[in-house]
Structures are given as structure tokens and as C-alpha cells.
């Protein structure tokens, strides 16, 4: 059974549609800007809330808007299952006396009581895990059509936390670069629809060949030096699909350890000559949304025969050298591998191919 993915939407500092964000990416635009908080400089990719008219929760508004836009791009007659991923959900609610606290309640407020939905909260690999879960549900015939949405917002909670880990760069992040100093926090939502029925999509979908996750079993906030978990996940994805991808959309946060680990993993799998990029200089690290936003941009890359570049990349800075380019390139592209890694030792990989 084939599983198709399409009807994509992104709402981010780079636009309100997948196409807008994609165009800005290939035109080397970044949502990362300088912000000052309590006399300290931060580089954050924030959405300007004043450009939106909404009441109540901005998080719920974004999720609702993105899902609505995606649903306009499909004709579905039967039931829809939803999988929503978010690392921190509506974390600001912790300061308010809300009736019900928790990601599932936040999602329920947007979707209502009827639809069946799952909520994934698994750190930075949540978005790709959500896509993988949708794939499994469809293949097991537990669902026909699944809407997957990954969303996270920047909050004081998250800024203060990553700051305490010395994980932030106060300038735009430089994945895989010698000069890299840390990550930038970002926010946004990425939504796509998966289905076994190609005909529901108004625009030709992409084929999802399967996704896998594996744990490093090494350290809760640092990756295995040799990228064992990532290697396993990628190997399984490559074996299941039997293809060599045209490009890799890596996790590439810009931290010393993550990028070094990824390069090590890709190198040892013999993937070091395949073009590898990170979209985090454009979007920042969008946590639970990263897996979906970055997958969707890569899908746009397939649609437009463009391999997105890694904005600002100049000097190769990983022990094992991999094929990173600064600029986006117009190249016939058939397929890509998406990878994510996150706290708790999780790693996820998935392969997408043009029909």
C-alpha cells in the first residue's frame, strides 16, 4: 500500500503558506532576528502576532489556521484522524489557572470533541514521529486520511531553559560550520495530510516511503558521539525504501555536539557526498514543529526541483566532512531523507519521493 503526503501548509516568520516560506528560503531569507531580553541579546525567529487577528490563544489560532489551510487542499469524504506534535504545547498556561492543563486539551479545543486525534510530545523529533505514526495508522488500515500538524511557540520558559544549557547562539546559527556556537529558537506550525488515496489531493502529492526512530541509549541531552541511534534509523529508512536520496534535510541545530554527531553518522553510512542541508538558519529551531516544517520545505524542494541550501554556511566544521552548500541549487530532485534528533536520545528518519 502506498502512502501519499501533500496539502502542505506552514505558518512561520517567513510566511503563511508553504509556498511563501519556501520562496523565502531559496531567496536566502531568515526569520531569525536580534532580540534583547533583560539586557541580554538573543537571536530568535519570532512570528509577529500583530499581523494576525485572533482572540484568546495564539497557539490555538495558528494550529487552527494551518489545519484549515491544509484541508482546503484535499477532498475528503470519510473520517479524518489527526496527529498533532508539540514539545511544550501551551506552556504559558502554567501561569494561568486553566480548567484543564495539557497538550491533549489544547488540541481538543481546536479540533472539537469528535475527531480522533493523537498528541505526540517527544522533544525535537516529535514532528517526524507524528508523520511516522500517521503512516503506520494508514498502513494498518486504522485510518484512511491523517492530518499531521507540528507546532511550537517561543516562550520565556524555553528561552531560559536553553540559556541555562549554554545552547544558544546570540547570532544566526551556523549549522555544520566551524564557527557554530549554538542554536536559535524559532516558532511556527507545519501541517500536511497523509493518505492511502492519491485522489483526495488537489495537487499531486509526494510519496512517503516510511519512517523510523531509534534511541541512542547514551545520554539524555547529548547525542551519542558516533550517532548510533541516528545511524540505525537512517539505515532502516534506506533499507525500507531501497533508494539513495538526492538530498538530506538534516537536524543541524548549530550546536557543537549535534552537528558533529550527524556528520559522523552520515559519513559512516557513506552518505557524505549527498547534499545535506539544515533549515534552522531560516526558521530557527522550532522544536516540535521542526520535523513537519522542515519536511514540508523539502517537499516543496522536490516539487520545484530545488535543493535548499544552508544559509550562511562557509567553513566546514565537522570532524567528518559532509556535503553542505550555502546556496539553494536548481537540480532535478526525486527524493530526500529527513532526519531529526532530540533530548531523551531520540532519532527519527523518513524518506520521501516524488511520484
Amino acid at each position: 500500500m502506498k502512502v501519499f503526503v501533500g496539502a502542505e501548509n506552514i505558518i512561520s516568520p517567513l510566511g503563511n503558506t508553504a509556498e511563501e516560506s519556501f520562496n523565502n528560503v531559496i531567496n536566502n531569507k531568515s526569520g531569525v532576528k536580534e532580540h534583547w531580553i533583560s539586557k541580554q541579546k538573543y537571536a530568535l525567529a519570532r512570528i509577529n502576532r500583530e499581523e494576525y487577528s485572533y482572540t484568546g490563544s495564539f497557539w490555538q489560532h495558528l494550529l487552527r489556521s494551518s489545519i484549515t489551510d491544509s484541508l482546503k487542499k484535499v477532498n475528503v469524504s470519510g473520517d479524518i484522524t489527526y496527529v498533532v506534535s508539540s514539545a511544550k504545547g501551551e506552556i504559558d498556561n502554567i501561569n494561568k489557572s486553566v480548567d484543564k492543563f495539557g497538550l491533549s486539551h489544547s488540541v481538543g479545543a481546536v479540533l472539537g470533541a469528535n475527531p480522533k486525534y493523537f498528541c505526540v510530545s517527544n522533544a525535537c523529533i516529535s514532528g517526524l514521529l507524528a508523520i511516522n505514526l500517521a503512516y503506520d495508522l494508514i498502513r494498518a488500515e486504522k485510518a484512511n486520511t491523517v492530518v499531521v500538524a507540528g507546532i511550537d511557540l517561543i516562550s520565556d520558559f524555553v528561552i531560559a531553559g536553553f540559556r541555562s544549557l549554554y545552547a544558544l547562539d546570540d547570532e544566526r546559527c551556523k549549522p555544520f560550520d566551524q564557527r557554530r556556537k549554538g542554536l536559535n529558537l524559532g516558532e511556527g506550525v507545519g501541517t500536511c495530510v497523509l493518505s492511502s488515496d492519491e485522489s483526495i489531493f488537489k495537487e499531486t502529492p509526494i510519496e512517503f516511503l516510511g519512517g523510523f526512530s531509534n534511541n541512542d541509549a547514551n545520554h539524555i541531552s547529548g547525542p551519542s558521539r558516533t550517532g548510533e541511534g541516528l545511524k540505525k534509523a537512517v539505515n532502516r529508512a534506506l533499507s525500507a525504501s531501497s533508494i539513495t536520496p538526492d538530498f538530506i534535510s538534516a537536524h543541524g541545530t548549530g550546536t557543537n555536539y549535534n552537528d558533529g554527531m550527524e556528520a559522523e553518522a552520515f559519513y559512516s553510512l557513506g552518505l557524505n557526498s549527498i547534499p545535506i542541508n539544515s533549515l534552522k538558519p531560516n526558521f530557527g529551531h522550532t522544536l516540535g514543529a521542526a520535523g513537519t516544517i522542515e519536511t514540508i520545505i523539502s517537499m516543496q524542494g522536490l516539487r520545484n526541483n530545488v535543493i535548499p541550501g544552508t544559509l550562511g554556511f562557509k567553513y566546514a566544521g565537522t570532524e567528518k566532512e559532509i556535503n553542505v552548500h550555502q546556496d539553494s541549487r536548481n537540480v532535478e530532485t526525486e527524493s530526500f531523507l529527513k532526519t531529526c534528533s532530540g533530548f531523551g536520545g531520540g532519532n527519527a528518519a523518513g524518506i520521501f519521493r516524488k511520484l
Partner: protein
Amino acid sequence: MSSEEKSLLKSHIINYLNLEDVKQEEIQDAASLFGDGLGLDSIDALELIVMIEREYNVKISDPSMGKEILYSVDTIANYIFTQK
């Protein structure tokens, strides 16, 4: 640092790192805290940096310097002494 001050330093280490089962006497002055010693990891290192700033008002702004400074109770004590 006097042995009393070192004792206090050890109790701060135990508190900040939640080393419930470890007694002050078990932490040797010159022994390595990381790796085989107390088996501390990189998160513990960051927590120690917070402790040193909070309790002694001494900043370690670059955590990569931390490895040398945080090697043992003695190296931490020396660093604090030189910064004050």
C-alpha cells in the same frame, strides 16, 4: 581554602547535584569528579557552574573552560580562590 570551607563546598556539590547517597567524607579533595569518580556528566557540570555563581559569586562564562576548573574539589577551590 580551609578544610572547613572545602567541607562547605562539598556540601554544596552534594545539594546542587542531588547526590543523595554520597557523604562529604566520600568525596576526596583531589579525586576526579567526572568519569569514574562520582560519575558526573555534562549536565552536572552546568549545574556546578550555576552553584559556583550562586554560592560564591564567581562566573564561568564559557562552559568549555569548565572541564579543567571542575575536575576535582581542589581545582574548583583553587579557581574560586583566584577569582575572589
